[in-house]
């Protein structure tokens, strides 16, 4: 079984019922329910991950709800392939048996949590009493993991409930106090939802939040917050582009692959919003190639953005660039200025024509040769023109279209 070169993550997706019932869950309610076939799922996993190093994550519904023997079956298969395991969970239903397995299979745990209980209100059961219990359980279980010395990170979903004004400052303080590192993703609103957009950040609000989070990161090198660190790596040309959404993710193949309960491969679960799951039988990068000539034409950061997440396409259209373009652009611009402030003569990826095609196919940037002494004047310093926001990109022109 062949998969495309930009595959980044494999989701093992048993699609079990989830007791958490978050307000913004994007699982398609019309998705057919089917009992998972764990043997077929693992067989596919072994076939597609052979000789590769993509991260494998047990995901899909609340995985701690799996029967413990099946939970171990999946962990064991992942461990055999990678020497460690990853799961994504709300920690609801965490039991001592899970803790034992986490230790045995070196599990990295991604916790789904959006901040302290007063900000985490879109997650968990919708019944107020059950939600109180859920919030309490998360905090206790985080402490339990810490006491057991088990590694975890988080995926926080940024929304109007936790990422604007004082709420954002509370989220930052809570994340720092609890030493929680991880990902700060914008809330994903599937196009079939009629109500969720009320909680969705505007592109400008997301830009403000991401830049604020980046400021904290730049002042504290111990913070591993995404997308800040990944975007810095993308700018300096260090490693593969991260995360998946900027790596030429096409809606027909998607960088993330999902192994469905029947053992077949599907696209990223964000693309399930359209009701079609299986993946293209051949690798495709059409979306990015056309965006480069249309909506993203001339954008300074296209080579390290590719139009962003197809699932976030403007007006729910997977062929369009991400609705959050302004935030992607704003964070890249902020970080580029900071890097150039430190190293005025550094060569960064936006300076390299056709960077993606040349450098994602095996070539590497020579880090030594691209530095000139910082004390030398740059052209832009000599002409007092250091405003990246007004150089050859189309962001300003595109702004009115969204």
């Amino acid at each position, binding site marked *: 079984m062949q998969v495309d070169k930009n595959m980044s993550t494999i989701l093992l997706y048993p699609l079990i019922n989830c007791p958490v019932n978050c307000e913004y869950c994007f699982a398609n309610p019309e998705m057919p329910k089917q009992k998972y076939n764990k043997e077929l799922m693992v067989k596919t996993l072994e076939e597609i991950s052979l000789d590769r190093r993509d991260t494998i994550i047990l995901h899909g519904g609340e995985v701690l709800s799996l029967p413990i023997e099946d939970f171990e079956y999946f962990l064991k298969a992942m461990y055999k392939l990678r020497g460690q395991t990853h799961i994504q969970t709300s920690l609801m239903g965490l039991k001592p048996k899970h803790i034992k397995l986490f230790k045995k299979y070196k599990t990295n745990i991604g916790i789904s949590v959006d901040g302290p209980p007063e900000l985490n209100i879109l997650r968990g059961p919708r019944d107020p009493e059950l939600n109180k219990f859920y919030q309490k359980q998360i905090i206790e279980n985080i402490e339990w993991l810490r006491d057991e010395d088990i590694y975890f990170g988080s995926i926080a979903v940024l929304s109007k409930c936790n990422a604007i004004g004082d709420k954002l400052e509370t989220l930052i303080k809570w994340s720092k106090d609890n030493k929680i590192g991880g990902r700060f993703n914008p809330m994903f609103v599937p196009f079939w939802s009629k109500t969720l957009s009320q909680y969705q950040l505007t592109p400008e609000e997301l830009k403000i939040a991401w830049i604020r989070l980046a400021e904290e990161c730049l002042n504290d090198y111990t913070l591993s917050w995404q997308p800040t660190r990944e975007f810095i790596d993308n700018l300096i040309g260090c490693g593969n582009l991260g995360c998946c959404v900027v790596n030429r993710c096409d809606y*027909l193949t998607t960088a993330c692959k999902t192994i469905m309960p029947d053992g077949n491969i599907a696209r990223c679960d964000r693309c399930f919003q359209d009701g079609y799951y299986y993946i293209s039988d051949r690798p495709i990068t059409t979306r990015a190639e*056309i965006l480069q000539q249309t909506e993203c034409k001339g954008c300074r950061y296209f080579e390290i953005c590719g139009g962003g997440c197809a699932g976030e396409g403007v007006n729910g*259209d997977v062929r369009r660039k991400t609705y959050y373009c302004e935030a992607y652009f704003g964070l890249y611009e902020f970080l580029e200025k900071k890097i150039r402030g430190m190293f005025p003569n550094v060569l960064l990826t936006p300076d390299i024509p056709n960077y993606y095609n040349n450098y994602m196919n095996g070539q590497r940037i020579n880090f030594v040769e691209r530095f000139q002494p910082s004390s030398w004047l740059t052209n832009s310093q000599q002409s007092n023109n250091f405003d990246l926001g007004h150089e050859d990109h189309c962001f300003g022109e595109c702004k009115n279209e969204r």
Partner: protein
Amino acid sequence: MNDKINVLNSPPVVLPRYGYLHVREDLRLISNLVEQTEYESVKRGLRLANRYHLTPFNFDKEIEKVSKDGLVFLPISRVKNYSGFIHEHIYINDIDQNTLIYGVIAKDLDVAKDFVDAHNNEVDHKSIGEMLGYPECCRNAFVKFWERSFDPIQEIAKETTGHKNCVDGVTTIIENADPNLYVHLRYFGIRIIPFFPCSYHCEESKNFAKKWISLMKDIDSKTTDKLLKLINMPSKWDLYNAQIIVSHPFFMGRATSYYDINRKVVVFR
């Protein structure tokens, strides 16, 4: 039609709905049937000529088959190899393993020569359409459509009596038309008539479709039933950013297309 970008000719892609993986195999069978029907129609004298491609790795067998069937082949041009569906040929000078020979098959050498001549200088679409056996009304409509679009799905819809234009200014709805005339699923192999009809109600095209279905059934009755089932289901055709997305109850298909600054959608109910 605004061709300001380099439109990609990447092959059409089909994503079956969950539980419908068999659709991929069905579409492969249907594509073969459609191609075979076009060939048989000339062999059996239902029309004068048809387009034909000699492929780089099989041309000896193809020439043998054409000759044994009492047909002639004349080349028209060398084009870049492609698989599946393409809106336009990419013409090339060199001949190599990536070259298709685009040409014509006919029973009569003079017809084949006329067909080739009709491709010289300014392409004579009306004469070509006549030799291919297409109805006159559709030949005339094609010339008009071709000035505006390489893929006139919405243009045909707007010529169809009873169509509805939605207030979004983007969507056209077609109801109670004849699905046998649908050509918006052809990227994935699903089609009966091998031409653009002048409308989705065209009587001449309906008669053509009847003859074609009969020929298809004669070749492979089971696959014809599959084709008829798929083409008769509701679907949506949606063009934007040079990509067509077709939503069908059994699959989602994507094909690259021409660029138009406006989005175009046709809903077939």
